[in-house]
Structures are given as structure tokens and as C-alpha cells.
């Protein structure tokens, strides 16, 4: 793996499978009475949140603590792009404190990339969501959830998502989750279809490794999973679509639409859900909906990422079959 995790596109197929396999090891730990590993003892990780996101921050924090890392939470409220609140200054402060890794969330696309590449700080940088660009650990946890549901916990080890069909629905234009998932799911061999009103599809999407459709109903029958994206109500005022009602009629997921899905197919959502407009309560509460699992899986996946970026060649939980580096020891198990 690369030194930083900035984009889901940074991961090769083998990298991604290694993260998912390592996350399975981390998940086994959850069944033990003491859910903690000494792996990152003595290491300091800073969660640098320029944009509020309690869910993501808590998920990273839980992952860090289960790996015994020392955690510093830094949150800069309000607009990160206002003058005098410099990413560079903060980075240099953290560098001076000897931080071993930085988990960064920022409202500006590219801020984690700049942090990793500007020489402001030397530590590995993990992108916890930047603007409308990327959210790679979200894509990894989604892939982990998909692999468990569609292939199985044990059967999935070493496997990618070849041949699986995933439909991603909603505000693609403003969604870092959609961008990250298109990259990662494609890398893992899945076929991705984006469904959105044309106003919420980015110009230039033609270069993405996926299909684009404006029609949800026709996409549903042939998919293994449908991933609903968050739609912000203020988009309505910016004329991206006429009314909430029209949006939910054309792009919302209700029980009737869910019935069109194949039996085995699951419904995903990165949370928090807006019940009503994008997904009905009935669908959200159905056993086919993986929202709660996604949250749990987020911790395992982030533990895996932190371990792999910071833990070096030490075994994570179980002894790997070969003593060489994790990336070469795991991929042959397929």
C-alpha cells in the first residue's frame, strides 16, 4: 500500500482485498472479552476534523483505541476556508508534537492531498472525507459489508467483488461517497451503475468506470445491492430538482421499489438517513438494509487501514501464513 490513504483510487485490487481480509481479522476480535490489541501502543494519532462529523470521528476514534493508540482529537469549527485558520499551521503544530498519523476531515476537496504532499508534515495521512472528492474508508467499509452479505464472512476471505452489480442512487454530484465507491468497486471487479437526475450527475462522468442512468426502476431488477446516497434538502432550493415529492417519486426507495430487487440484494446507506425523501422508514428498517452493520464494519475497516499504514509487518490478530509483508502474504489465499 501507499504511505497515505487519500483516495480509493490509490488502492490496487490486492491492497483493497488485503484491507478487507485484515478487517475480518479485526472483526473476530469484537467477539473477544477484551476488544483491544496492543498493536499501536505508544503511537499517537490525531483526528483532525475541520468539518463536523461525529459518526466518522467516533468510528476512527474507536478504531484507534482498540489498537491501543494515543488519540488526539482536534476539531476546527466553522468554515475551514476562512482566513487565519490555516491547515498548514495546524499541520506544522502536529508535526512538532511528533504525531504518527493524521486522520483528516475537511470541507475542501484536495485538503488531505495537500497535507500529504506539501511537506508540511511527514506522517501518514488518512482521508476521512474531503469536500466532494473522496471518502476512501467509507468505500472500504461498504465493500466489506457487501462482501460479507453477498459472499460471506469466511467464504469472502481473499475474494473481491467480481461480477457483483451495484447501483448507487442520489446526489452523485456532491457525493464523495459515490466517487470513492465507483473507484473501489470497479477496482474490486464489480459493475457499478449510478442513478440520479441529470442535474446531480457531474459533467465529465463519462470517464468514470461505471454506467449512468436516470431511471431507477430499470436499474433495480438486475442489481445485487442498491446504495442510497444522502440528498441534502438545500439542493432543492438550488434548482437541482423541483420538489422533494418529485424527487422521492423518481429516485426514492420505498417498499414497492424494493420488491423489484432480486431476493438476495441488499440496501445500503452511508447514514445519516433522511427517512421519507430518499428512503422510506419501511425500507430503512427492513433486514435487507445494512445501515447498522455498516457502522460496526466501519470500525473494523478503519482498524485495518490504521494497522496496515502504521503497523508495518507485525501480525494483526492471527499469525499470517507467511512471515513476509502483509501485502504478499494475503493475496495468495484466494
Amino acid at each position: 500500500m501507499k504511505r497515505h490513504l487519500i483516495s480509493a483510487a490509490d488502492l490496487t485490487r490486492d491492497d483493497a482485498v488485503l484491507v478487507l481480509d485484515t478487517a475480518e481479522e479485526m472483526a473476530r476480535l469484537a467477539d473477544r472479552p477484551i476488544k483491544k490489541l496492543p498493536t499501536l501502543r505508544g503511537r499517537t494519532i490525531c483526528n483532525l476534523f475541520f468539518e463536523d462529523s461525529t459518526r466518522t470521528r467516533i468510528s476512527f476514534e474507536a478504531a484507534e483505541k482498540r489498537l491501543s493508540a494515543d488519540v488526539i482529537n482536534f476539531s476546527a469549527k466553522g468554515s475551514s476556508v476562512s482566513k487565519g485558520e490555516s491547515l498548514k499551521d495546524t499541520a506544522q503544530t502536529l508535526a512538532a508534537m511528533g504525531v504518527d498519523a493524521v486522520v483528516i476531515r475537511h470541507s475542501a476537496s484536495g485538503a488531505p492531498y495537500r497535507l500529504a504532499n506539501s511537506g508540511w508534515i511527514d506522517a501518514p495521512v488518512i482521508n476521512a472525507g474531503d469536500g466532494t472528492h473522496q471518502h476512501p474508508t467509507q468505500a472500504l467499509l461498504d465493500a466489506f459489508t457487501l462482501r460479507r452479505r453477498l459472499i460471506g464472512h469466511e467464504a469472502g476471505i481473499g475474494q473481491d467483488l467480481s461480477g457483483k452489480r451495484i447501483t448507487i442512487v442520489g446526489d452523485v454530484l456532491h457525493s464523495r461517497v459515490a466517487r470513492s465507491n465507483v473507484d473501489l468497486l470497479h477496482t474490486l471487479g464489480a459493475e457499478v451503475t449510478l442513478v440520479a437526475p441529470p442535474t446531480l450527475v457531474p459533467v465529465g462522468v463519462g470517464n468514470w468506470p461505471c454506467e449512468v442512468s436516470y431511471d431507477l426502476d430499470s436499474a433495480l431488477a438486475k442489481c445485487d445491492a442498491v446504495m442510497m446516497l444522502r440528498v441534502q434538502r438545500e439542493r432543492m432550493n438550488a434548482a437541482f430538482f423541483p420538489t422533494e415529492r418529485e424527487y422521492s417519486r423518481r429516485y426514492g426507495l420505498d417498499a414497492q421499489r424494493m420488491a423489484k430487487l432480486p431476493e438476495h440484494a441488499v440496501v445500503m446507506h452511508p447514514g445519516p438517513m433522511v427517512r421519507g425523501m430518499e428512503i422510506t422508514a419501511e425500507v430503512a428498517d427492513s433486514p435487507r438494509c445494512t445501515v447498522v452493520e455498516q457502522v460496526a464494519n466501519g470500525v473494523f475497516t478503519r482498524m485495518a487501514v490504521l494497522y496496515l499504514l502504521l503497523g508495518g509487518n507485525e501480525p494483526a490478530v492471527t499469525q499470517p501464513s507467511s512471515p513476509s509483508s502483509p501485502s504478499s502474504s494475503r493475496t495468495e489465499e484466494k
Partner: protein
Amino acid sequence: MSKTLIRGAKVLGGEVQDVLVDGETIAEVGTGLSAEGATVVEADGQILLPGLVDLHTHLREPGREDSETVLTGTRAAASGGYTAVFAMANTFPVADTAGVVEQVWRLGREHGYCDVQPIGAVTVGLEGRKLAELGAMHESAAGVTVFSDDGKCVDDAVIMRRALEYVKAFGGVVAQHAQEPRLTEGAQMNEGVVSAELGLGGWPAVAEESIIARDVLLAEHVGSRVHICHLSTAGSVEIVRWAKSRGIDVTAEVTPHHLLLTDEMVRTYNPVYKVNPPLRTERDVMALREALADGTIDIVATDHAPHPHEDKDCEWAAAAMGMVGLETALSVVQHTMVDTGLLDWAAVADRMSFAPARIGSATGHGRPVSAGEPANLTLVDPAYRGTVDPAGFASRSRNTPYEGRELPGRVTHTFLRGRATLMDGKLA
């Protein structure tokens, strides 16, 4: 009266000749001229051009002297071979009154590295609502002839119409920064494949093209002339080409960076590439080069936009837009236009001196290199090869996208009315 003999220069890239400068004017152009009593500059076949004229410079004084001042900006201009620059009006305070334009003009006269011709704002405070006192600025000592709200678009069609009509009274021209504001809300880079991938707000080509289309039609309707700043798209070129074919009195400029750089560079998230209008695609770059070659685009203008280091050493969204350009313009033009065979040096003289002086009514600049003319001259060594090192810039700011890049050519001498402002590559 001091004399200078420039010996063995290819005048406008043509015949090797000697040029004798006596005082402020060119005394003689010929071969084997006597060097008696004159300082001799051995040109050794370097290219002699009329002093370059930049119709689009941001000098930042008054108000942002931490970025640039009239002194540092004109020193940068002299280093780049310029003998006259037009200073944009988006200063603090805005150059929207006779007082401010006279202040800028006077600072230019005092510092003396090149002539500074202030541009007046079209509207009060660049706010787009009320016409500034265009006539008073024209009648002031600064003699303003070019008006622009650059940095902002005059987007109100009625205000634009009135401005175009009003300046006809004194032969002025409105220079439009074409950017439809609603279509570029939140825009951070060219809208396309790269913006989609990077998740940066897209700046569609049509936001520029729709304003240009409207403005050439307005100019036609009221029988006025309009100048379009920094064209950046292939579509803009098509509209200007159509307007000219229809006889509309429109002129247009392109920046050196839009002739070379593309939005692919934004993948680095390095704010040095953040500029307004944004870097576009390879296809746009090729269309702009072609249009500059065939005369659809009249001139090269730098849009020299200095910013202090801290305004660029940050995340992309927070960074200021713009790049410095005076000191690298000629090298970029040589690289993209001359070395590619699209323009010869005589045509470079047209696009970078004769035509901008004509559009801006800068009498005394953009004159032929012949006896009796003001000795505003630039000597260029086209064989020079080197990498760009901003540490050596005369500009107060260093926000260049070319740091470490190899670019051909170097301005070795600049003469402003017979006086060397740049001598052997060093400011005099």
C-alpha cells in the same frame, strides 16, 4: 544626450541590422553604423522587438502592496521586456475615480521602469450597478482609455450596453472579464472530466462563452467596440471569429498560461495552478494557439496576478486565484507559438506590442523600429535555455506555475525611451 548602438540585431526577427539610439529616439537603422560616442550593445543576432505592451497587469497598488507595488511590478515588467503596462482597476480603493487613476499613473512616472497606463473601473466599486465617472478618468492626467471591472464581469446587460455606448464619446474601450456569475458559483476549476474526479466545483466554458456572445451582439447593436479579456475556451474563439467575420468591432486577448497549461495540472491540487479563468483542456489550448496565429485573438496579455506566498501555500479552496506572468510571458510565447512554427517574430511583435498599444491607445508604444520613433525596444535571446527560478524574479510575488520548468528564450535588454531598464539581464 546619450547614445546607444545595438549592433547586429535581427530586427523583428528579420534582417540583421544596427540600431542607433540617440537620446529618447531611434536615430538610425542600418548596417555598419558608427559606434562613435555610443555605448555598444552586441546583439549577436538576438531578436530586436518593439518594447512589449501588456494590456492586462495587476500592480496591486494601492491596497495590496504586500503582493506587488507599482515599483516592483514595473521592475518585473522591464525584466520581461515590457515598456508599458496597463494596470487593472481592482485595487483598494478601486480605481474608479480620477484621483485613484492619477495616483497610479504618477507612481508609474516616478518609478520609471516602464510606462504605467491605469485602467479605470467600469462601475463604482466594481459592483456592477452604477457607472463610474468614465469621462472624468479619461480627462484626468492619467488619460484613461481602457475601462474594466476585471476580476468581476459586468454581467448586467444594461450597464454593459451603457458603458459601451458612453465611452464612444472619447474613443474608449470596455475590456470585459467574461464570467457569468450564476453559472460559476462555487467554481474552482474548469468543469469537465478532471473536476468531476477531483470533486472541485466546475467552471463551465459556457459561463465565459455566453457573456462573450452577448457582448459582441451588444457592441454590434450600439456600434461600439469591445475588448474581451483572457479567452480560455475553444468556444470563445469560435464566437470571436464569427463576430469578426460579421464586422463587429471586437478584439480579444489570451494569456501565456492559457496557451500552455491544462486542467490536468490541477490533479496536483497545487494552488499555483488556480487561476481565473481556469486552465482548460488540451483541445482549448490548441484552439487558442491557432486563433492567436490566425489573428482571431489579437494579443497576448499576461493577467499578471501577484499574490503573497501565504495566499497560495494552503489548500486549494482557500487559495487566491492568479499567477504572475510578466517575467515569463515572452518565453512561454516563444515555446508555444514560435518554436512550434505558429508565429514568427514579426507576428510576436504584433501580438505583444503593436496590437495591444493600438487597442489601448498607448501612443509612443508599439511603434515601428525605425528612425524617428521613440526608442522603446526589447532584445531577446531566443537560443537561451534555462529553468525558471522564481527566486530571481523582480516581482514581489513568486506565484508562478513554471518553477523548475525549462522554457526557452530570455529578454536580455529593455530600453524605455532610450534608457536601458534592463541591461544584460539585470535591472538597470
